[in-house]
C-alpha cells in the first residue's frame, strides 16, 4: 500500500535547492525545482550504486528538469527518472510529491519503509 509521508517544512529547503530525506533504509533525493515545483527520485545513482544524487546539480535540458550525478555527470530527468543520454539500464525510481499545510509529503510504498526490500533493488541487479 502507498502512503504519503510527511517530510519537512516547506521553508527548510530553498527554491533551486535540494537535499536528501531518509525513511528507514530508503534514501530519496528531494528537489525544490521552482516555486511549488518539487521532485523526488531515488538518491542512489544506478551507475555505481552510491547514495549521492541529492548532492548533484539541477538544471534543465530543453526545458526538461534534470538532476546530474556529482560523481560522473550522468543526467536524469526529474520527471520520468530516465537517463537523458539514453542508457536504459540507468532508470531512477520517482516518487510523487505534494505540498499541504506548509509541509511537504512524499508518496512511498509502505512495505519499503518496513521491510528489507527497497524499490532500488530493481535497478541494482
Amino acid at each position, binding site marked *: 500500500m502507498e502512503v504519503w509521508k510527511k*517530510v*519537512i517544512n516547506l521553508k*527548510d*529547503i*530553498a527554491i*533551486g*535547492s*535540494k*537535499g*536528501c*530525506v*531518509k525513511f528507514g*533504509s*530508503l*534514501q530519496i533525493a*528531494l528537489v525544490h*525545482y*521552482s516555486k511549488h515545483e518539487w521532485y523526488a527520485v531515488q538518491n*542512489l545513482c544506478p551507475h*555505481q*550504486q*552510491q*547514495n*549521492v544524487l541529492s*548532492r*548533484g*546539480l*539541477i*538544471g*534543465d*535540458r*530543453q*526545458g526538461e*528538469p*534534470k538532476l*546530474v550525478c*556529482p*560523481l*560522473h*555527470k*550522468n*543526467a536524469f530527468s526529474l520527471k520520468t527518472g530516465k537517463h*537523458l*543520454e*539514453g*542508457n536504459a539500464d540507468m532508470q531512477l525510481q520517482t516518487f510523487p510529491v505534494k505540498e499541504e499545510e506548509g509541509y511537504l509529503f512524499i508518496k512511498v510504498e509502505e512495505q519499503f519503509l518496513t521491510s*528489507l*526490500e*527497497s524499490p*532500488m*533493488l530493481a535497478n*541494482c*541487479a
Partner: protein
Amino acid sequence: MLTKQQLVVIGNGMVGCRLCEELIEKKSEEIFKIVVFGNERLPAYDRVHLSEYFAGKSADDLTLQPVDWYVKHGIDLWLGDHIMAIDRKNKYVISEQGCHVPYDKLVLATGSSPFVPPVSGAEKKGVFVYRTLEDLDNIILYSKQVKTAAVIGGGLLGLEAAKAMMDLGVDTHVVECAPSLMPRQLDEAAGKFLQLKIEDLGVNVHLNKLTHEFRGNGRVESILFADASELAVDMVVISAGIRAADELGKRSDLQLGARGGIAVNNYLQTSDPDIYAIGECASHENTTYGLVGPGYQMASVLADNLLGATREFSGADMSCQLKLLGVDVASFGDTHSDDERENAVILENHKDGIYKKLILSEDGQRLLGGMLVGDTSDYGRLLSSYQAGVPIPKAPESLLVPPATSSDKDATSVAFLPASAMVCSCNNVTKGDLVQAIRQENIQELAGLKGSTKGGTGCGGCIPLMKDILALELEKSGVAIDRSLCEHFPYDRQGLRELIQKNKLYTFGQVLEKYGTGQGCEVCRPAIASILAGCWNDHVLNHQDIQDTNDHYMANTQRNGTYSVVPRVPGGELTPDQLIAIGQVAKEFDLYTKITGGQRIDLFGARLEDLPKIWQKLIDAGMESGHAYGKALRTVKSCVGSTWCRFGVQDSTSLAIELENRYKGLRAPHKIKGGVSGCIRECAEAQSKDFGVIATEQGWNLYVCGNGGAKPQHAILLASDIDTNTVIRYLDRFLMYYIHTAEHLTRTATWLNNMDGGIDHLKDVVIHDSLGIAEQLEYEMQQLINSYQCEWTATLQDPDKLKRFRPFLNTEETDPTIQFIKERGQIRPAPPVKQPVLELLEI
C-alpha cells in the same frame, strides 16, 4: 513539370549505401527516384567491423542506415532479391523474383565475393567463408561444438577472421601460402613483427603452406598441405581474398578489366554510358579496390556526376590503418619497391615489437610509401606528408621518432590524432568512431555525440578531447562552431565574463535573468560560479547550488560519497608540529592518508557531517584550505634548491612558497599547478606544470602551459634569466589573461594549443604588452589577491553555511550505506555490492 528520372542501384553494401547517402545529402530527390536492390536480407551494414559481431555487437549496431531512413527519403529498397539480367536495349532490370524495373541510370555496386581457392573438399561440413552476417551466424553456431579452427589466408581479412575465431574462444590457426603475413601491405620483416605479436596472443601461424585438400568424413577433420604435412582442425574459415562480383556485368556484355571487375572510365561509367559501377566490383585502369575508402571516394564522385558534375576519379591509394588482433598496423603508398637500390629508412624496436619503414624517392626528397607495425601513432602525419608530396627532413629518421616539443599549434592539435586513437577508454571509443558519428549522424553538440557513441559517459576524463574533435569536424564541414557555454547561454566564456564584469553582476540568478534562458545546467552553473569568483572573489558558499559538489562542500567527492580533505602545504614545506597535527586529525576521524603528487597530504574517507569538525582542528593547528576541491590554484611544487642541495643555484623553496601564497584561492577556468626547481636537474618537474620556474645562474627561466593529464605536454619557455619580481609580474599577467580568455574547463596547455599565434602571441601579450592590457591584468590580479580568505575559516564562523553539512533533511542519522574495509592498516571504501541496501541491512 519535369518527371523524375529513375535511378536503380544494384547492391546495398557499404558503397551502395554511401552513394544513396551522398545523393540524399546533395538533394537528389527532385531529380531522381532511387530504387535499390540488395542481395542480403539486411540493409547495408558495416562490413569493416564485422569481427565485432563476434565480440557482442548486434546486427543493429552494425547497420549503416535503418530501413526507416530509406523510407523517409523516398528510396525503394528491395532486400533479399537478386538482379538476374539487364536489358540494356529497353533499359530495365529483371530480378530473381520477377520484378521488371525500368531505369534511366543504373549503378552497379555489387561488391565482391570471397575467393575460394580450388581445394578439394571445400564442400565439407565445417568449411565456411567469411563475408556476410549470415556467414557469421553459421560460423558462430558451428564453433560451439569445436575446439580448433583454421583460417585460410594471412592477409588483412584473414587476420580479421582470426580475431573473430579467438573471440569465439576457439584455438585458432592462421594458414598463409606466402612466406609472411599480410604480404600485400607488409614486407617480410614487418610481417615477422606482426607474427610475433599475434603468436603472443595465442594464435598459431603457419607460413609457406599451400592448402591442398580438406579431409574428413563428411565434415572437415584436417587440412592437407602441398608439402604433404597435415593439420588437424575441427573447422575452416576461408578468408583468402575477394573477387570482384562482375558476373552481372559480364552477362550484360559490359566491358571487363584485365584482371576482372567491370571496367569504368574516370567518370565511373562502364562501356554503356547509362550504366556506372563503383566499389569492389569496378575496375578502374585495371585496378580493383578491396578497401572501403576508395569505394567511398567513388560514391562521392559518382553522386556529383549523376547530378550533372564532371568530377573524375583518378585512382585511390591503398593506405590503411587498422588494429588486427589488437596489433596496430598501417601501410601507405608504395610498399613494394622491387628496386634493389631502394631508399629505405627502417626502425626496428625488438623490445616493444615496433617496426617502421619508410620508402623514399631516389633523391631522398619525398616519401613514396611506408609501413608501421606495433605503433601507428605517426600514421596520420606520415600519410599527409606522403599525400602532399612535400619535401621531407634531411634526416628522415626523425620522422620515425616521437616529435620533440614544439610550439607549433598544428603538431599538437587533435587534427593530427590518428583515427585509431583511443579517446574514451571506458567505452572503447576511438577518434575515428567519433568522427564517423559526427559525419553520419550530423551531430552538432556534445550531448548528441555522447548519446550516439557512449564516449564520455564513463569517467568523463575524455570530454575536453571529445569537444575538440567535435569542434574540428564541424569546422571542417563548414558549420559555424557554436561556442555557446551550453543551451542556456548563447555566449562563450570570455564573452559572458566581459558582460558580467562590465555590468557588475554578482549572482548566478542575475546572470541567468539578464543573459540566459531556462534553469541552467551542470555546465553553465559551475562555469558562471568560476567567472564570478574570477571577477569578485566572493566566498564560494555564497553561491548556493551552482557549484559542482566539490566546491559545494569544499572537499573532494570520492567514489563512495565520502570526501577527502587537503590542507594547504605551500611549496611542500611542513613543520613537524603541522605534520603531527594532520596525523592526529586523521587518527581521530579514522581517515586514510596518502601523499599527493603535489607534495601535500590527502585525508580520505571523511563523512559529510564530519567536515566542519575536521577543519576546525586543522585550522586550530594553523592550517588553511588547500583548494584541492576547486578549479583553482592547487600547489606550487618545489625542490629544496640552494638552501640544502649541493647542486641548487637559487632558493626554489622560498620562491615556490611565495608564489603559492600569492595565488592561493585563485579560481580559474580549470585547475592550475606550478613548480619551481632550483637547478636544471628539474626535480620539481616544473616543465609539466601550468607554470614552471627553473633556476639559472643569472635568475630564473619561466615556462608556461605544461600539462600532465590525459595528453601530457611540456611547458614552453616564456622568458629566460629574469629576476624574481619579473617572474611575478609575468605570472600575474599570464594567469589573469588565462582567466579572461580560456573556455571553461580548458587547461593552459589546450588554451595555448588553440590560441591564434600560439606562444609568440602569448609572449607579445605578457612581455611586450601588445594588447595594452598588462596594467589592467596586474591590477585585477592584485584585487583578487587582496580579497583572499580561507574559505573554511570563514565557513566555520557562519552557522548558516554550516547547515549544509548534514546528510539528511529529516533526521540527524548518519548514512549507514557508507562502509569501509581495512587494507594495509588503513580504511578504504567497501567494494560496490550488487544489492547495497539489502547487504547493508544484514550487518
